[in-house]
């Protein structure tokens, strides 16, 4: 019984969102706002259960005095809601921005920049002509695309030709992205249809 009620609610809400395809309407707007509220409430409850309770509260109760520092910073964050005293919220904001900037710096450096440059050190003399051609194309593709994103010189003459090749590589990669995006969107629709006609209406 609760499953039938649940599935019916889910089915009706699915149709409410789909109704937007016909045109923007009251039912859609209601469902949309309901969703935003649900999601926001869900996030707060989860932050409470999974972060504040185990990682802050339990530690404070257990006598971990150092945990007062993040507690104080977290409280300062909420001064943003006050008409005055907003500047205090910049303390925790500053700390957070700094921490993420630091971690992202390391991440992009080791994960993207260095590792990707290293992976493109390729030979065009490997004994297999297919690999040679492919490696050659990888080298040329990376270089010409980088030339396209080089702004310190006019794109004329030889540089212009290289950057033109770069744009062709870019367009092929955008075509690939387009194809994959179509795939993603179709999958999501299939998922909903399977729910509507299978789980809810039991027609499949």
């Amino acid at each position, binding site marked *: 019984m609760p499953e039938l009620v649940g599935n019916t609610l889910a089915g009706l809400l699915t149709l409410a969102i789909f109704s937007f*395809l*016909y045109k923007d309407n009251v039912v859609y707007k209601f469902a949309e706002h309901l969703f935003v509220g649900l*999601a926001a409430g*869900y*996030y707060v409850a*989860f*932050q409470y*259960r*999974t*972060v504040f*309770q*185990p*990682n802050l509260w*339990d530690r404070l109760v257990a006598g971990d005095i150092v945990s007062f520092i993040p507690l104080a910073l977290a409280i300062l964050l909420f001064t943003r809601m006050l008409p005055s005293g907003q500047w205090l919220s910049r303390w925790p904001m500053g700390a957070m921005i700094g*921490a*993420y900037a630091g*971690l*992202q710096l*390391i*991440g*992009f450096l*080791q*994960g*993207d920049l260095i*590792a*990707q440059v*290293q*992976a493109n050190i390729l030979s065009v003399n490997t004994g297999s002509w297919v690999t040679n051609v492919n490696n050659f194309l990888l080298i040329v593709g990376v270089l010409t695309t980088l030339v396209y994103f080089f702004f310190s010189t006019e794109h004329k003459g030889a540089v212009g030709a290289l950057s033109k090749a770069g744009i062709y590589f870019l367009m092929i*990669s955008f075509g*690939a*992205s387009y194809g*994959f*995006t*179509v*795939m*993603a969107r*179709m*999958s*999501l*629709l*299939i*998922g*909903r*249809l*399977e729910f509507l*006609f*299978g789980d809810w209406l039991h*027609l*499949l």
Partner: protein
Amino acid sequence: MDWKTRLERLDRRIIFLVIFFAVLMPLFFPLGLSITPGPEATAFHAAIEALQPGDAVYLAADYDPGSLPELQPMLEAAIEQLCKKDVRIIAGSLWPACPPLVNRAFTQIAEGRFQKVYGTDYVNLGFKEGREVVMNQLGQSIRGVYPVDSAGAPIGDMPVMSGVDSYADIKLIVNVSAGYPGTKEWVQQVRSRYSIPIVAGCTAVSAPEYFPYFQSGQLSGLLGGLAGAAEYEVLVSGSGPAAKKMDAQSLGHIVIIGFILLGNLIYFLRSREGSVA
């Protein structure tokens, strides 16, 4: 009005109906097209296949219901393969809306089909806020980040966690990701810093961006979207929920291609008319 004008001014709701039925029909009348796994899915499967019984794996599930149809089949198939290999599964999420989906898959596959025991063979640590920070903290101490599991039970004395407290004790990270934070961040923050192999299943939208990570060896396997999930299912068990949807997927693609061609045919004919006139 000639046919070209009529098509040009076509109400988009008619286009909506066409795609709706194109995707729906194969769900009722499957075509049964065969699926051949590609190199990325094969490598994903092989990376898990190389594990030894008793090894610990970190299952990083970073998505939400918005990508459920693409990613849930990957998670389920991965849990199935991990159960078959008798490895310990430690699951965690950086997306708040994910832990219930992980629970669902565990209940269905690990508990339902393989009679695995929660706390002994697998654990769902649940959600933790902090994105990249959490990824790094797990390299210090998993228990420090997750004193309790998703239901609030202390993980310290669970048998599944015995001998495991950081990446040093983990053999492989299996990531299922719908965006930020996800595969890209696991590669950036964890792959080389803690020298631990990662396999990733991701939405089709982000997959093309991750091919360089696969070629460079930063990812040991890659599943892209529903097609990737279907290929992996074929490798794990011969079939599965994703594989069953591939017919609908095929027809959807064909209709989109048809739309692009038809739209440009009209455009081409129009521009010829223009140059003649």
